[in-house]
């Protein structure tokens, strides 16, 4: 198994090894993190921000990079980091399963639960803040004369009687003047214990449980706490950035959903206050898992008034896009940190030579064809549109396997998620290594190995993955999984037919929009597809104007299985709900109907068309 060889030396045995950011040392985070093309500048702005992204899209890595130790390494020292005009003090707060969403909370009424959840979250953030001040900031950066007073002031933010036992506990463990931050951590820890003790009593005893601990809110605790934190920093009023990582995880469990919503409701209430100069929130989650934008008072937070947001799952992957460049930088950095002799990822993952030559030939042919076709549009667009399609058609005719080898192809196949690039590369490298080649002798990954791995990686998504999804859901939802599998097969076949049809004008179709209202059962299938990343979801302006419709883009990782072109998508198919239902039920009939309908369409314009093809515009978001 490939691991980081050494915690400090940063030498990667397998350059594509993926490690959880929480396991990396600050130096490793800085070495591995690429800030270009990540929109980190938006995240660094003093505005509440939501960072949406799938698992493995780099959200946690970005958060870890913003922590003080990493920032100081990145800028070459604490002075350099803290004296910047846009400096901030980031507190990383990973929300772990089971720590805040406790089952016993379900025993409380809605009002009581929100109070306790907010107090739990406050204690969690406060504890992490003290931990950061103790372990991430050199002591000379904090005004020590003020620290004891700071600790007392923080303790006084609570109701005096309620906090007394926790103060007593902290006093017995450490002298406040010796270690004020630790003293506060013990105090917060004791409050956390009190909450747990209350929840335990509530669950286990017949007698009515009475909560005897303190409570805390935003205005009476969290904000004043952060103001006090600002006051003890030697560099003046740095804003405190609270980085709440994983604030929403997808779940079908209604009880869990309720607790998740409670938590999100508290976060939204904090966001609604717009106190960014002191306390700025950065919240990461899977977009579909963020279930409410409502505050505790029932108001809604809105973008851009209350917050900004970025989506780290990229849509466009073509050469020269941000994503392409980002992957290139990340991959090159990883090659630098490994023993392999090649340090350029485009050389390390070469394309299939034979196919390269073939494509060049088809490009030449379509260039000439453009003249004979009376020069429609621009010549380059014509070549882009048809040359690759001709290659696919040729390979089908000559019964040759399509190669997806080459850095550019693999970037496309990763569909905008960095982990989906690293994972197959990891497997390719492992395969090279297990064939007996020494790491320093691995100068590149042969294209046949790339192809084998990419095909298996794609196949996993259409075979094994559906079984896994089924196992992860209750039986009453299994019909949705079956429908999704059929829908994917239908679309795969449809797009294959288009791409391999020499007469097709829009050969490189890869996405669809839905016209009209979608029935609930079909909508659930689509949602499942988005949740498990078979589709990326965006919106598109309707042709009629005045509205937006949902736009589903197939995960390009599937391309090797359906022999599709991952290099881009020109146009989309507009499907009716009926057509979608058919696609969820019968792929053969679905593909046949489309073709048949197209023929009918040309002969009889009165008939309703099953598919409408529309030109892609640039206004997708």
């Amino acid at each position, binding site marked *: *198994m490939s691991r980081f060889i050494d915690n400090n030396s940063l030498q990667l045995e397998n350059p594509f090894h993926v490690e*959880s950011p*929480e*396991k990396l040392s600050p130096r490793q985070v800085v070495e591995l993190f690429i800030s270009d093309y990540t929109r980190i500048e938006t995240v660094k702005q003093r505005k509440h921000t939501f960072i949406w992204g799938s698992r493995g899209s780099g959200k946690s890595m970005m958060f870890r990079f913003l922590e003080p130790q990493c920032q100081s390494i990145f800028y070459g020292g604490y002075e350099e980091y803290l004296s910047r005009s846009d400096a901030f003090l980031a507190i990383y*707060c990973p929300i*772990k*399963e*089971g*720590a805040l969403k*406790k*089952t*016993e909370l*379900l*025993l409380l009424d809605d009002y009581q639960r929100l109070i306790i959840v907010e107090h739990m979250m406050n*204690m*969690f953030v406060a*504890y*992490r803040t003290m*931990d950061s001040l103790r372990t991430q900031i050199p002591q000379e950066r904090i005004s020590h004369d003020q620290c004891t007073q700071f600790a007392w002031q923080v303790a006084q933010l609570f109701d005096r009687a309620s906090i007394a036992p926790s103060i007593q506990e902290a006093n017995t463990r450490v002298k406040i003047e010796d270690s004020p931050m630790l003293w506060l*951590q013990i105090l917060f*820890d004791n409050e*956390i*214990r009190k909450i*747990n003790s209350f*929840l*335990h009593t509530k*669950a*286990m*005893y*017949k007698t009515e449980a009475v909560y005897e601990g303190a409570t805390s809110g935003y205005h009476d605790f969290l904000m004043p706490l952060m103001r006090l934190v600002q006051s003890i920093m030697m560099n003046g009023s740095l804003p405190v950035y609270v980085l709440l990582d994983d604030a929403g*995880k997808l*779940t*079908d*469990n209604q*009880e*869990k959903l309720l607790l998740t919503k409670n938590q999100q409701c508290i976060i939204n209430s904090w966001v609604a206050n717009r106190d960014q100069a002191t306390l700025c929130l950065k919240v990461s989650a899977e977009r579909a898992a963020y279930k409410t934008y409502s505050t505790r008072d029932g108001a809604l937070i809105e973008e851009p008034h209350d917050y900004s947001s970025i989506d780290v799952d990229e849509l466009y992957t073509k050469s020269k896009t941000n994503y392409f460049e980002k992957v290139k930088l990340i991959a090159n950095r990883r090659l630098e940190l490994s023993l392999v002799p090649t340090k350029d990822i485009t050389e390390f993952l070469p394309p299939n030579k034979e196919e390269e030559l073939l494509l060049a030939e088809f490009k030449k042919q379509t260039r000439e064809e453009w003249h004979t076709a009376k020069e429609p549009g621009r010549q380059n667009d014509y070549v882009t549109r048809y040359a690759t399609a001709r290659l696919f058609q040729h390979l089908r005719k000559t019964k040759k396997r399509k190669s997806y080898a080459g850095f550019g192809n693999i970037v496309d196949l990763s569909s905008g998620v960095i982990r989906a690039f690293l994972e197959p590369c990891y497997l390719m490298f492992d395969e090279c290594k297990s064939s007996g080649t020494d790491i320093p002798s691995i100068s590149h990954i042969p294209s046949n190995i790339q192809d084998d791995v990419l095909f298996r990686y794609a196949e996993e998504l259409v075979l094994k993955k559906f079984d*896994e999804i*089924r*196992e*992860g*859901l*209750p*039986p009453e939802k*299994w019909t949705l999984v079956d429908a999704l599998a059929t829908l994917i097969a239908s679309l795969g076949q449809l797009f294959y037919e288009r791409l391999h049809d020499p007469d097709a004008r829009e050969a490189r179709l890869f996405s669809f929009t839905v016209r009209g209202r979608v029935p609930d059962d079909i909508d659930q299938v689509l949602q499942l597809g988005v949740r498990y990343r078979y589709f990326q979801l965006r919106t598109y302006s309707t042709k009629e104007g005045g509205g937006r419709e949902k736009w589903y883009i197939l995960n390009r990782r599937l391309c090797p299985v359906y022999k599709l072109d991952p290099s881009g998508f020109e146009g989309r198919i507009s499907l009716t709900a009926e057509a979608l239902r058919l696609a969820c039920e019968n792929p053969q009939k679905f593909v046949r109907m489309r073709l048949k309908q197209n023929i009918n369409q040309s002969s009889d314009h009165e008939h309703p068309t099953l598919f409408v093809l529309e030109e892609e515009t640039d206004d997708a978001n």
Partner: protein
Amino acid sequence: MLINKVEQVKSSGGIKTATNDVPDDLYLVCASYEPRSVAATESLSLDYKARKGIIYINKEFYSGASSESIRSNIIRLQTILEQRCDSVELAIGSWLDVKSQLEVLKSTLLPAKPEQSKEWTSTIDITSFNREVLLTSVALLRVGVIRSRIKVIYVSPHSHGQWLSRGFRGIRNVMGLSGIQSPSKQSLLVVLSGFEPDRTIRIIEEHEPRLVLLGLGDPPTNQEFLLRNREEMKLVLARQDVKEFEFPTASIQECLDVLQKLLKNYLQDYNIILAPMSTKLSTIAAFLVAECHPEVQITYALPGEYNTKDYSTGADNVYEDWLPELITR
């Protein structure tokens, strides 16, 4: 601890009360679709006496596909217990709805007025409980009763079905056993594994722990079970940051000793999450760990469905064991 074949137990006089010659305050059993769910009650000695007999049922099974076998098992249990208990009560809980599950258990298991001076004795046939209900029941009887003596009976099957449960509804901590997490510690997941690799993987994926300690049941209650356990867990063991250890499956005390020794090295630095997914006896040991270390959380993966048609066959050995006195660190 005593281990005997079902027939041996019956022929040697049957199962006695928790404290010999003193009637139990409570006899608790779960009526399920498994044939072995009545085996322990059928093996009670003729002079067995309890003040209260409780037959717990999950309402989802009561009205589901296996309702016929459950109803017949209930009648069988009722008939026997009516002769041995002053009163017999049906407690209809839910394996899906955790709130109602707790409410039913609390209202039926806990004495109305705990008597401080008297030792409250219970015999629990733990064979057919799902682990969450079992853990909550034991927790209630240990926490809510001041002086509690608990004897447990477990009947192992001859064999298990091809699958035990399928699908996944989510994870949750067991009521009252949510632990205390330090916000700065990373998490360590300890799994006492059984035959359900998918549920195990889900638990790992949901918790995203820093480290996983995967326990294989060795010695097992049956050598074949160990082979299957190893086979089923191959994929889990192949994952990054998963370390293997072994735990005894048939003795509460021995399993507890292994877990205590194992966790000693991690308690200081990790938030510990314990996922008992093996025998019911080792599940009780997991509870005792959490009782001793309130920081430890016990987690439970809610399955999509149980194999009610073919969960297990027969009734093999009867294990009789007692929970130790309250353990303090």
